[in-house]
């Protein structure tokens, strides 16, 4: 089985080579037979990669220590779920997952691309095949998960304890679906550049892929943030860690791409923007892969390091980013301009959005790469932390968030900013009220905190205003409003939900950062502590034994107002003997949208324990907002508009009907 998987991977590489060359050649020469090779090659390539992945996962699940990567990252005592997730909890396996998802998207294009023009489909599959071939070669030559050990050791070295968590089952697959999903947008852009023209329907084909990738990336980042929050025991939800930035940059660029693609499909404008953003987004995904996989960073994401890998990925980066940008420089001038628009219009607002988002991306890029450059040039190790990003990223984001509610309400081509402002009066009043209530009634609220809350409410109410205005609220009869509301395109709901999610996340961040409280103290069994109106009693430390760890579990009772026990929080210090590592399992109690977060420190000789306690108001909204954004993307995906662009089957193929506006 293991060797079958290995062979399937090699075969997938050979097939990817064919998938790159033959359809490309076919598209150049107009040979339909050669173009037709792309789809079956992509499907078979996906099947082979999937077989290979299943073989590796089986080896992990069965603790086959004759496979080196299993031996290095697994242990026979691990629970089955962590044995399986361990498949991608290491460099080799996660690269295989990466390629699996890449070929999966290629197969999706092959299956659902029947309505694409033949040359475009062939070129897209060829570019996708090229990415697949380089990464398969990378895996086979530098990070082969199927390297064998003979004789096989009898016991493995265990998976990194931090990764022995359900988060590993969800976060990397989601994140990779996002990262790699943008490869399709990239392939579409490069295919368009190879052909030297963009079809009118190009944006309609690209937008669903962008939405899918963006949806998964949003989920992946939110999940990763929550995982870091509860697993690392520091109580932070975002660390501006380079590995986090690596996933955040494609998200920012992808968000710009998403908006740009809207203009392109509706108004045939911003073609260059869209192409460039598609290339940049996937380039940033590749850069993220390079940062995380090459080992140039040493961060909380404890993964393998190896210089040969770094150089190889750097070559891949140069090839794809350099190649696509060169192609862009050569061909961009041949693209025809689209619809005209005035600066103050929906198009203009979206250009502004793109500018802000790309600048923000650049800021994060500088903050992430600068320490590496300094280290490379002067051997000094510096870190660019939260202060840099607060000073640069924050001021960029705030104005963008302020103008977000205006965007969806502006008219196409020429907008009336005052009319829009009038419609947003209610939202503005609600935001102002939120500022006043916060400033007057919440103790210790600074002006900045109050304004932050106001901004969040501005976004939330703005999203609702968008829906209300579009269904004619206040101008037509209530019955008509309901009918129009139900008849709104799904993409309108998608927009509103995504912007609502943004507002919720903002509210969560402001709430946690500005109103959170913290206590560090040493507690004996029976001691009570009070934090922001919640009383906790320490019940004591109890030893417990897990399948492959032992732990000291600290039990805390959450006391109600009358002193009765209203709940229990458990935090533990776990010790994994195989890796000789300890982890802290934080204890979390969710109260409304807020959380009480508790983390055990070291035990002192007198039996007391250091306890760190946080009150995090509205913290769950940070990730809840992410989920709402995902729902928005899913809603947009259901929009009928995305299914237009295929010639309907009623018409005879090949016939060009007369051009008469309906």
């Amino acid at each position: 089985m293991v060797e079958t998987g290995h062979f399937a991977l090699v075969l997938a590489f050979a097939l990817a080579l064919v998938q790159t060359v033959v359809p490309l050649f076919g598209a150049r020469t107009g040979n339909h037979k050669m173009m037709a090779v792309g789809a079956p090659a992509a499907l078979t390539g996906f099947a082979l990669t999937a077989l290979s992945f299943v073989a590796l996962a089986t080896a992990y699940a069965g603790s086959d220590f004759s496979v080196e990567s299993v031996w290095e990252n697994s242990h026979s005592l691990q629970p089955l779920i962590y044995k399986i997730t361990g498949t991608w909890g290491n460099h080799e396996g996660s690269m295989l997952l990466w390629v699996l998802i890449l070929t999966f998207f290629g197969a999706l294009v092959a299956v659902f691309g029947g309505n694409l023009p033949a040359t475009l489909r062939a070129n897209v599959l060829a570019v996708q095949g090229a990415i697949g071939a380089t990464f398969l070669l990378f895996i086979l030559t530098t990070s082969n998960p199927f390297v064998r050990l003979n004789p096989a050791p009898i016991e493995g070295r265990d998976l990194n304890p931090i990764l022995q968590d359900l988060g590993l089952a969800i976060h990397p697959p989601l994140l990779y679906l996002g990262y790699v999903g943008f490869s399709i947008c990239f392939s579409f852009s490069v295919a368009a550049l190879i052909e030297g023209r963009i079809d009118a329907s190009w944006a309609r084909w690209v937008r669903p892929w962008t939405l899918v990738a963006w949806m998964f990336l949003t989920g992946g980042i939110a999940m990763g943030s929550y995982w870091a929050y509860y697993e690392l025991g520091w109580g932070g939800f975002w660390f501006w860690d380079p590995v986090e930035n690596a996933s955040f940059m494609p998200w920012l660029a992808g968000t710009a791409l998403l908006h740009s693609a809207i203009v392109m499909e509706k108004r045939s404008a911003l073609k260059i923007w869209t192409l460039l953003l598609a290339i940049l987004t996937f380039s940033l995904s590749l850069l993220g892969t390079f940062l995380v996989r090459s080992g140039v960073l040493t961060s909380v994401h404890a993964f393998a390091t190896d210089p040969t890998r770094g150089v190889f990925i750097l070559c891949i980066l140069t090839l794809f980013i350099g190649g696509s940008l060169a192609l862009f420089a050569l061909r961009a001038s041949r693209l025809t301009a689209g619809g005209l628009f005035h600066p103050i219009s929906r198009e203009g607002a979206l250009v502004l959005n793109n500018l802000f988002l790309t600048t923000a991306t650049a800021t994060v890029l500088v903050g992430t790469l600068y320490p590496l450059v300094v280290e490379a040039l002067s051997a000094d190790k510096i870190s660019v932390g939260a202060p840099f990003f607060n000073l640069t990223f924050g001021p960029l984001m705030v104005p963008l968030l302020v103008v977000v509610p205006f965007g969806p309400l502006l008219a196409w081509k020429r907008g009336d900013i005052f009319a829009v402002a009038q419609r947003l009066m209610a939202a503005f009043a609600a935001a102002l009220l939120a500022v006043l209530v916060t400033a007057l009634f919440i103790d210790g609220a600074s002006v900045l905190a109050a304004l932050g809350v106001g901004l969040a409410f501005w976004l939330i109410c703005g999203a609702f205003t968008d829906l209300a205005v579009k269904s004619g609220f206040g101008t037509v009869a209530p019955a008509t409003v309901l009918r129009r509301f139900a008849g709104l395109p799904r993409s309108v709901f998608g927009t509103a939900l995504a912007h609502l999610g943004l507002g919720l996340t903002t509210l969560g961040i402001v709430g946690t950062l500005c109103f959170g409280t913290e206590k560090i103290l040493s507690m004996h069994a029976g001691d009570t502590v009070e934090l922001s109106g919640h009383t906790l009693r320490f019940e004591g430390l109890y030893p417990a034994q897990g399948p492959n760890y032992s732990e000291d579990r600290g039990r805390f009772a959450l006391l109600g107002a009358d002193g009765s026990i209203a709940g229990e929080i458990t935090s533990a210090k776990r010790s994994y003997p195989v890796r000789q590592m300890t982890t802290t399992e934080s204890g979390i109690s969710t109260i409304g949208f807020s959380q009480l977060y508790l983390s055990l420190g070291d035990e002192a000789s007198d039996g007391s324990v250091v306890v760190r306690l946080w009150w995090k108001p509205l913290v769950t909204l940070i990730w809840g907002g992410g989920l709402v954004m995902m729902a928005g993307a899913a809603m947009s995906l259901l929009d009928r508009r995305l299914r237009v662009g295929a010639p309907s089957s009623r018409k005879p193929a090949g016939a060009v009907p007369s051009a008469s506006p309906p």
Partner: protein
Amino acid sequence: MLFWVIAAILTLGASLAVLLPLAGETKNTSAAGDHDLEVYRDQLAELDRDVARGLIRPMEAEEARAEIARRILRLSNAGPAGTTATQRSTRLVATAAVLVVPLVSWGLYGQLGSPDLPSQPLSERLAKNPADSSVDELVARAEAHLAANPSDGRGWDVLAPVYLRMQRYADAVTAYRNAIRLDGDSAARQAGLGEAIANAAGGIVSADAQAAFEAALKLDPANPKASFYLAMGLAQEGRTAEATAAWQKMLAALPQGSPWRGAVEQALAESAARNVASEAPAKGPSADDIDAASSMSPQDRQAMISTMVAGLDEKLRQNPRDEEGWMQLVRSYAVLGKTDQARDALNRGIAVFGADSDQARKFTAFAASLGVTATE
């Protein structure tokens, strides 16, 4: 064999995926213009909806309509594009593509793969015939059995000495404790526990280890392991005289063929050397060495001791100005019964420091106490 069959089938499938479209009929595909027209029509329809919803003003909508109409006109003007490749070049590419799949895959796999190595899931390895298993596999098997039946005292009892030999001392301690808890005390188990505790602590006989050895002696006063280690504990505390006495008593009581004789003699030799100087720069056998010696066959043990003495001899040839080293070497040869070599060592030691030196006098006196004289 099965693997090669699967590999061949997979290769065939992959080759067919390339071959079939190339050999098949050319399908009629729609021209790009059709797709565009659909989009433009939808854009027009959507424009009307946007006007109805007030998202665009009528005047701008008219402009937009004109823009779209112009695009549709441009579309119908565009002619068909693309050239047709010659039959020959098609056939050439097709042949190359179909050949690349098997050639690249089998070539690369030949470089990277280990086709003869079967999968070895742990459960299968543990289930096979014990006679074919390695020691590691047997231990893992026993561990799996004990994980399922943690109250099997006999299992722990069997596993404990194996752990000890594999130098997994912490596991040995647990195993011995479990065996004692489940199957009751015995001198061998208590002595083994003591040995495991001592070795886990790097050879130091701690209070825990001492308690275990004493328990063993209570059950079997003649247990050599317990007596030996207890004496070692005394020596480690600096009570050398008591330790020597205990070992000498052991030596007298031990039967001639006992494997412990060598270990005791070795320990006596070392402690005698320590007696002269509390700290020896050129060290004799360590506690680990002695422990290893005690569990060896008499021949192996003899060989090991000879190797250690030879090592000391060699060290002294390189660093001759080591007073304690020379005395230890003389002592070792004397204990081994190699009187000639002992005398030789004494003479070499005297030569290093000079016949009139204090050291030389000390050596002579020391050697005399062992029955060795500088000259015949």
